[in-house]
């Protein structure tokens, strides 16, 4: 109770909770769930973009794409580290991913079907992710907040890069422009769904708000994303696939059409186009790599420094 009071006071004062601090079990669990889900998303998120590395149409774009996918892996690594500060090891986190117990962002269960998808993922998917993540830079849990500051910085860079790649394509051939439009058509609605269900149906939100883990509601973030993105789409010259998308002078926001939540939940619950495939790919990589990890461990054990006499 004394601990709880100190914890509440810290939260109320917008202070940071650090690994060595006492924290309620539910707070810890919520954080582990959220941080690991976020880490898994980075790792699984390497696959749809990685799918195009071998076919990148210029060496410059190939280098940019490899660097980007590498950054995502890096984000995964420091998010796993942040989760580890809460007392759960990476092996356990990966086991939960591979068993299907832990989730990752559903957006990565859609396939990348043309090269423009690489740009669109930067512009729209990373854009939506940043909207979601910027508030987390002020999250009450210190290691997570600090990881997110770094992640957001790099993601902003990726977003600009993705948008720039699409700009170049839109100034190119008719086929290139068609690729961009096709890509935006496939990704737009999935990106809106990334902000999660409408506030009215969002079960975890209230407690997470109280704990300073979540700071802005799903619908507010979604609106913010739409308002920021529509002008960018206009500059780009693509049509966002929503006939109801229209500036509302009164609200000073864009109105938009209805998201297909059935499709969203189907994908979240395992029935998207690539759910099986993404997970199977990660599991296969992990299993195929077992002998390598075993070897590294065996080698390290053989060659660890002998304990000195003083230590013995």
């Amino acid at each position, binding site marked *: 109770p004394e601990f709880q009071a100190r914890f509440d006071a810290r939260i109320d004062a917008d202070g940071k909770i650090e690994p060595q601090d006492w924290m309620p079990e539910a707070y810890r669990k919520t954080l582990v769930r959220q941080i690991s889900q976020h880490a898994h998303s980075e790792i699984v998120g390497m696959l749809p973009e990685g799918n195009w590395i*071998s076919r990148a149409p210029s060496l410059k774009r190939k280098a940019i794409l490899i660097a980007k996918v590498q950054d995502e892996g890096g984000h995964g690594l420091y998010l796993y580290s942040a989760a580890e500060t809460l007392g759960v090891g990476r092996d356990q986190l990966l086991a939960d991913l591979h068993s299907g117990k832990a989730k990752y962002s559903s957006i990565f269960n859609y396939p990348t079907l043309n090269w423009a998808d690489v740009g669109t993922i930067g512009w729209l998917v990373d854009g939506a992710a940043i909207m979601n993540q910027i508030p987390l830079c002020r999250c009450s849990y210190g290691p997570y907040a600090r990881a997110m500051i770094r992640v957001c910085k790099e993601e902003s860079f990726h977003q600009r890069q993705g948008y720039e790649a699409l700009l170049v394509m839109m100034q190119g051939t008719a086929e290139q422009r068609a690729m961009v439009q096709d890509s935006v058509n496939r990704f737009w609605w999935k990106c809106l769904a990334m902000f999660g269900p409408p506030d009215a149906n969002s079960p975890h939100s209230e407690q997470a708000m109280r704990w300073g883990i979540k700071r802005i509601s799903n619908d507010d973030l979604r609106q913010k994303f739409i308002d920021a993105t529509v002008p960018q789409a206009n500059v780009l010259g693509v049509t966002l696939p929503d006939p109801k998308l229209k500036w509302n002078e009164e609200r000073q926001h864009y109105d938009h059409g209805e998201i297909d939540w059935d499709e969203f939940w189907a994908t979240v619950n395992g029935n998207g186009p690539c759910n099986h495939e993404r997970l199977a790919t990660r599991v296969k990589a992990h299993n195929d790599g077992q002998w390598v990890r075993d070897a590294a461990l065996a080698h390290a054990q053989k060659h660890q420094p002998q304990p000195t006499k003083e230590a013995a």
Partner: protein
Amino acid sequence: MAAYFQDYLLHLADNAVILGQRNAQWCGHGPVIEEDLALANNSLDLIGQARLLYQHVATVRKDGKTSEDLLAYFRDVPDFKNYTLLELPHSTALTPTSSGDRDYAVTIGRNFLYSALMVLVWDALKSSADAQLAAIASKSLKETQYHLRHARDWLVRLGDGTDESHARMQAAINHLMPYTQEFFTPSVMETAVVKTGMGVDNRTLQADWNTLVDEALVQATLKRPAAGGFVTTGKTGIHSEHLGFVLAEMQSLARAHPEAVW
């Protein structure tokens, strides 16, 4: 003479781009995430080297149309001058596909044998009579030293790890070693650039390479196999059947849209 120098630059560039393409195949599929990143990084360095070298060819050629992407994406198999070693799949079972099952021991073994050569080559090329190549060599040397360290560490770890990893690493080295004969078998193009002081005679590096290889293999508790048999000829443009599949995939999008700018 100028043509031989261009071929030599292309040889160095093609080595980098093809191995870069191969190593990037691990991205998202590595044994631990750290290795996904390490190989992505290796690939990134190699593609960077290739770009500088291709750009240098374009400068030398001065025909107003050669560009790094023209060289990477619009040449055919016999135009590529990379060592055959670098186009092989990541597998001791050479099934003719551009990807397929990957064996990390083959990846590590190849990166080790190649970067052990290239630290010596780049070091020598720092004194190339061609100033631009000398500059590229300086930059590439630092990167390649890192690649060598990474591959060597894993070579030792896998060789001196478990019984399984030892067997796999030995099989990979046995499989790869014959391809290294190409490193030290001079071609017309190399002989020409050695004469002008622009290129290096790899045979002058062979003793040092042997030392690098032998010391690492000893530490890894591996046996060095005899490197006999067929001497591959990729650097003269006569490749294995694998390069065609690598290029088909790598060039597919660029070739489908020859007018496009990306």
